[in-house]
């Protein structure tokens, strides 16, 4: 198997590593990020990703090594420090929460930069590395494991991803609980504070492990975007995490290919793709998407207009007048416009309304439907007069609005509540 791999085109090998490391990084971030999004702590993730910088520098200064475990230790310390400082400033100092975050992370980041320039300027601070990552070159830096050359990044992000998964699985219900109701969780013995700091520490470590590949800002994208996108698509945490992980991997794959195609920075492209997934969800998510809501609204408006036409035709029939409506008149009567035209066409197509010459008439099916609607209308009028005390001349408008939402069951219950379920307040008969 290994021989097959090493016999592949070097470009393909590189692509494989890039996609793999990218996917692992993104997934490690996305899983934790679900909690951040749900706990409204997304900006704390942003703050942490900036604030780990001094931790790294101090760790380097103290130990003189740039090894991955030193970096982790530094990140851990910085992560806890940030969370603690923000908490103190807010509770003890009375500074509003968002300002506390702003003060702490900018101060720590500035400190980190100054420390780097002072103590580590010999170590070339590659700005690219910090901010945009060098994912493209991920397989240049390799270590030998079990006789194979794998990118060093694998050794840093791999264990972190596994650790994240373990922690999440192990503390599944505690994390869930303390995310939704910290007070109750603490009173039941799961210290919400402990899990808060645990989450912070994991985020800090994941940030550091992802630094080299995707840079610090893009970590933020990977923390938040997949989780927020998944949040728009489902209401269950397990599914949300699954979707977020899927999005994370997809962002890695698509991001890579797009970056190759346009010849641009890979990590940036991955984050952009993640953002585009979010935009897609905002627009198209079945329940919570904007376009879906619009479509639902349109459908509802169309239904309302259709029913208005039916009701109008029914009432004309009831009056027994010879007066009947033609197409144009019917459309004008319900307000005109494309929606009305569409509605009438729909009615004709469904066989609720038929043409009699150039005038319109109800079919039996249509009459039955219209009857139900008028029944709902008049029952509601009776209900409004009796239970809401409205004068009879005020109830027609409200009933016109509400009739479309009263199904058969509700109609029966309304009928049970009114004194006379056969006559409306204007003396007209209520269809049965």
């Amino acid at each position: 198997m290994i021989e097959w791999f090493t016999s592949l085109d070097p470009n393909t090998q590189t692509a494989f590593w890039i996609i793999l490391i990218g996917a692992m990084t993104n997934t490690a971030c996305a899983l934790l990020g679900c909690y951040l999004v749900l706990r409204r702590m997304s900006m704390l993730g942003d703050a942490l990703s900036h604030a780990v910088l001094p931790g790294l520098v101090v760790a380097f200064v103290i130990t003189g090594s740039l090894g991955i475990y030193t970096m982790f230790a530094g990140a851990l310390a910085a992560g806890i420090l940030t969370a603690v400082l923000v908490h103190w400033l807010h509770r003890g100092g009375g500074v509003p929460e968002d300002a506390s975050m702003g003060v702490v992370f900018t101060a720590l980041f500035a400190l980190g930069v100054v420390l780097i320039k002072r103590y580590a300027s010999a170590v070339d601070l590659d700005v690219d590395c910090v901010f945009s990552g060098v994912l493209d070159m991920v397989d240049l830096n390799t270590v030998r494991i079990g006789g194979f050359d794998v990118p060093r990044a694998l050794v840093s992000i791999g264990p972190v991803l596994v650790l994240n998964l373990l922690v999440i699985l192990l503390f599944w219900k505690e994390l869930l609980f303390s995310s939704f109701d910290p007070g109750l969780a603490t009173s039941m013995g799961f210290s919400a504070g402990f899990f808060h700091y645990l989450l912070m520490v994991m985020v800090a470590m994941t940030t550091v492990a992802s630094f080299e590949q995707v840079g610090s800002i893009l970590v933020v994208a990977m923390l938040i975007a997949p989780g927020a996108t998944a949040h728009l698509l489902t209401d269950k945490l397990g599914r949300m995490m699954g979707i977020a992980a899927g999005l994370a991997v997809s962002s890695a794959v698509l991001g890579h290919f797009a970056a190759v195609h346009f010849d641009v920075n890979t990590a940036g492209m991955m984050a952009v793709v993640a953002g585009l997934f979010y935009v897609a969800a905002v627009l198209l998510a079945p329940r919570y998407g904007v376009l879906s809501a619009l479509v639902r609204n349109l459908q509802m408006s169309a239904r309302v207009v259709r029913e208005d036409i039916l009701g109008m035709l029914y009432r004309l029939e009831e009056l027994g007048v010879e007066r009947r409506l033609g197409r144009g008149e019917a459309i004008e009567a319900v307000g005109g416009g494309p929606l009305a035209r569409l509605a009438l066409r729909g009615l004709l197509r469904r066989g609720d309304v038929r043409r009699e010459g150039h005038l319109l008439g109800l079919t039996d099916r249509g009459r039955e439907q219209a009857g139900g609607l008028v029944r709902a209308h008049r029952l509601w009028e009776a209900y409004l007069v009796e239970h809401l005390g409205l004068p009879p001349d005020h109830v027609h408008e409200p009933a016109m609005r509400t009739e479309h939402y009263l199904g058969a069951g509700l109609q029966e219950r309304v009928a049970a509540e009114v004194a006379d379920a056969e006559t409306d307040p204007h003396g007209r008969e209520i269809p049965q």
Partner: protein
Amino acid sequence: MPPPPVEIHDMTVAYHRKPVLWDIDLTVPEGKLVGIIGPNGAGKSTLIKAALGLVPLVSGKVEYYGKPYARQRHLVGYVPQRESVDWDFPVSALDVVLMGTYGRLGWVRRPGRRERDEAARCLAQVGMEEFRNRQIRQLSGGQQQRVFLARALAQDALIYFMDEPFVGVDAATEQAIVRLLQSLRERDKTVLVVHHDLQTVSEYFDHVILLNMRLVAAGPTDSTFTNENLQKSYGGRLTILDEAAEAVRLGERSR
């Protein structure tokens, strides 16, 4: 006959498409103290906010002396709920009361001596003149409420809306508020107060509006604040209205 101070015609208000107030139709008589009563979630605050144009109406309209709110703003004073504001804001009690005069001043003009004196007078009316330069965070709940009242007084209005002014205040403040309301009535102002304490309704208000998602009853306290009407207001929500509201929210025909 002159138009009444407040007239609400067939008003329906919805939050996120779900109707919370159904077809409210009522007239408020001039120069009376009106209590708006109902259980939690009945829509009392919503009624006030809708009347002030702070939440949109699904249908209906509200008229002040026959004209829409936008043209009569200067006649209406407002005391919002105390918790609607960040009390750690760096302003003094006098500053807050001065805000009541901003509407009169219009753009750019700063409050001058006249407005400051007016604000001081309003603070005195609620018994807070010695606290004029105190930062609002240092005031007790009752004192904060009085500052809010003074601000409404500074609006120098004919009609006042007050949202739960008696919540969380001490007995002395409650008495002060009641005295203030009575002095407003003596000056022929119309005051509508969202009130939560049924024990004191008969004592404080001449007129009541009983709400529970719809208008249960409105009229003089003696004839309207009856057991029967209270039963209707507090005896549980009208399930039918609830179901219909949910159906409207979902946009579908109910089961």
